[in-house]
């Protein structure tokens, strides 16, 4: 790799080399990217990706090395990729989001196989499908599971009460079990409270319905299946709220205000979404409840920790990972940052079974636990996220520009096909 870069440079830039020589005496990047050598371990994660308190404790706990943590804002994946291209300042431990892990697996050589550091001994402590999600097809573990994203329905109990809808979680779950039931409830809600909508946008429905299935956009033979019935069904369901007038059409940051001022009566999302709600609208504490979501559970999100191959101290890095993600600390992650643990041992711990004051004292494990057990597992190809993107853009076009749904569907499929083809998927 290093050699081909040099050759590349030389064939195209004599002067560039001259600049380099004049400027920095031809300094080349060292394989150990972490500043300070192997006695410092750097950790990158995004806000809410790990519990800040657990991270702070990790810094105190590990005395033989210095743990340096950075919360990276903005587009985490882009920052990580750019830094890895730069081969400098690459962290020893990095978070990887669930929706991104599939695209990193083909480049498994950029990371250290955690099984070689002893991860395989811990495999039994974590959910099988999650473990598999972070592994390559030939069994290398790239991502160590942090959390999973079992989905449920978050709803405003007070607004439901005002609209004459059921308020306790069990009844809500049974009466809003199917998508159509859910949408009808939304019509009632909106009729009683004109300022309140059922959900934020149609994309969230599409995402959820696709996640509730066992196939996605590309099958295990690397063949494009995004034009088939299961996706079409998700598409049509997603547009129902728009047709019924219960869609708030919020696609930007004004969600933060909307969630607090009662413009949104429900949210469909994963367990970690609770943190988004509570930090955006602390004033609504006590008014939200959780119930089993329409159409059954899915997994949305849930992340991993990985060790880039450039790490100078992989052993210490792995010690940090296994400490941060032990069942006890994962339980703390749930309390602090609504990260639903990927280790079943945590589910019986007090942190998980406690009543959540934000949800009016409800024990949310009673909803998320069963949901976690029933999560359907689907194959996610590396090109899946990229191929899915046009569907979301086109849905938003229908939502905000009034584009014809059939035209939007055709455009989404054709764009998805060309994006997939560019990444080597057969269509």
């Amino acid at each position: 790799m290093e050699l081909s870069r040099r050759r590349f440079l030389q064939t195209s830039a004599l002067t560039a080399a001259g600049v380099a020589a004049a400027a920095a005496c031809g300094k080349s990047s060292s394989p150990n990217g972490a500043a300070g050598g192997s006695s410092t371990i750097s950790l990158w994660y995004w806000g809410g990706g790990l519990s800040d308190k657990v991270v702070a404790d990790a810094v105190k706990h590990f005395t033989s090395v210095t743990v340096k943590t950075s919360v990276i804002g903005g587009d985490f994946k882009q920052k990580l990729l750019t830094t890895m291209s730069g081969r400098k300042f690459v962290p020893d431990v990095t978070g990887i989001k669930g929706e991104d892990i599939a695209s990193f697996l083909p480049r498994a050589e950029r990371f250290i196989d955690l099984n070689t550091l002893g991860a395989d001994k811990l495999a039994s402590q974590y959910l099988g499908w999650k473990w598999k999600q972070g592994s390559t097809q030939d069994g290398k573990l790239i991502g160590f599971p942090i959390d999973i994203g079992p989905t449920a329905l978050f709803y405003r109990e007070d607004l439901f009460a005002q609209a004459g809808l059921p308020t306790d979680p069990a009844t809500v779950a049974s009466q809003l079990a199917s998508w159509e039931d859910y949408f009808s409830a939304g019509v009632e809600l909106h009729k009683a409270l004109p300022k309140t909508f059922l959900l934020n946008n149609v994309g969230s429905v599409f995402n959820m319905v696709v996640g509730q299935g066992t196939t996605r956009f590309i099958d295990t033979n690397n063949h494009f299946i995004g034009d088939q019935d299961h996706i079409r069904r998700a598409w049509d369901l997603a547009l129902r709220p728009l047709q019924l007038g219960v869609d708030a059409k919020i696609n930007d940051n004004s969600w933060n205000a909307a969630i607090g001022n009662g413009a949104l009566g429900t949210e469909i999302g994963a367990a970690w979404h609770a943190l988004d709600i509570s930090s955006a609208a602390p004033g609504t504490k006590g008014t939200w409840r959780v119930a089993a979501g329409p159409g059954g559970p899915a997994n949305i999100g849930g992340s991993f920790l990985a060790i880039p191959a450039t790490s100078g101290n992989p052993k210490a890095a792995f010690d940090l990972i296994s400490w941060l993600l032990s069942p006890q600390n994962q339980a703390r992650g749930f309390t602090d940052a609504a990260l639903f643990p990927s280790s079943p041992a945590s589910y019986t711990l007090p942190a998980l079974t406690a009543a959540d004051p934000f949800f009016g004292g409800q024990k949310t494990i009673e909803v998320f636990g069963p949901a976690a057990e029933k999560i359907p597992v689907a194959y996610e190809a590396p090109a899946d996220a990229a191929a899915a993107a046009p569907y979301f853009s086109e849905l938003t076009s229908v939502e905000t520009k009034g584009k014809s749904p059939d035209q939007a569907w055709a455009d989404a499929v054709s764009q998805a096909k060309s994006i997939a083809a560019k990444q080597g998927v057969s269509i």
Partner: protein
Amino acid sequence: MATRSTVEPRPQPGSAHRRPAAGRARRRRRVLSYWPQYLAVSPFFVVFTGFALVPIMVTFYLAFHDWDGIGDPKYVGLSQFRYLIHDHTFWLALWNTLVIWLLATVPMLFIALVVASMLNSAKRLSGFYRVAYFTPSVTSLVAIAIFFFAVFSSQYGIVNATLHVFGVPAVPWMTNPWTIKIVIALLMTWQWVGYNAIIYLAGMQAIPTELYEAARIDGASAAQRFFRITIPLLRPIILFTVVVSTVTGLQSFTEPQVMFGSNAATNPNSGGPGQAGLTVMLYFYHQAFDNNDFGYGAAISWALFLFILLIVAVNWRLIGGRDR
């Protein structure tokens, strides 16, 4: 233009064409004797060549390859460009970029002309006005983008609140594809009107007042004086501002990136709902640094460069090439 100045020991400057061989040696020595001058002007060229010129050539080279930054670049001929032509998102981005630029530049230049002529007539407070109007152009674009996003927000922005006072219903500024473009265009206009107005003002003040006097004596109205004297004489300056705003405006990146940055997780191409704010530069950035598709990114850069050239040429014909 000021007079040429020479600091030259020899009586005849310039190069000669018909000299004997000995003269060539003398010439070489002469050229070499100017080494301080060459050295003095060289830093720019060294930096520019290394940092700009060669990278531009490399971009050209990369556009014919497929490269993700790790392995070797793979030669793929024209396939990146072929993909580009069929890439719906690219054309959408190009359309967005052009529309936003038009929405911004045309009103901005008109308003700048009007403001300049108002400033020209204002005898008092002119210093204060100039500072006030110029200030937006020295402000950080990141901060302005954050600010405009907050102010035009559908749920809590002050713009909708003000409209509400006048009984106008809330406008979904940051959701509707057209209003998104309008907001970005407003941002650009706000930032640059003052700057351009003051440039026009300087140009106006260079116009001799006798021209206006003569016209007034001939019975020309204020409007006629403006359109027949001011505008034509300002033409080169107007052309300058149009070209500059073309080159910078068509490369806009910061506004949509900062405004819709957090959407990147759910919508990889970002640019807001319906990608209405996706500019070519932003699309390029996502392809290059989000997908690590350096080859395709290079192809997009080239397309943008050619597009900018095209628009600048159009501007030149429209504004500059008419008279003389």
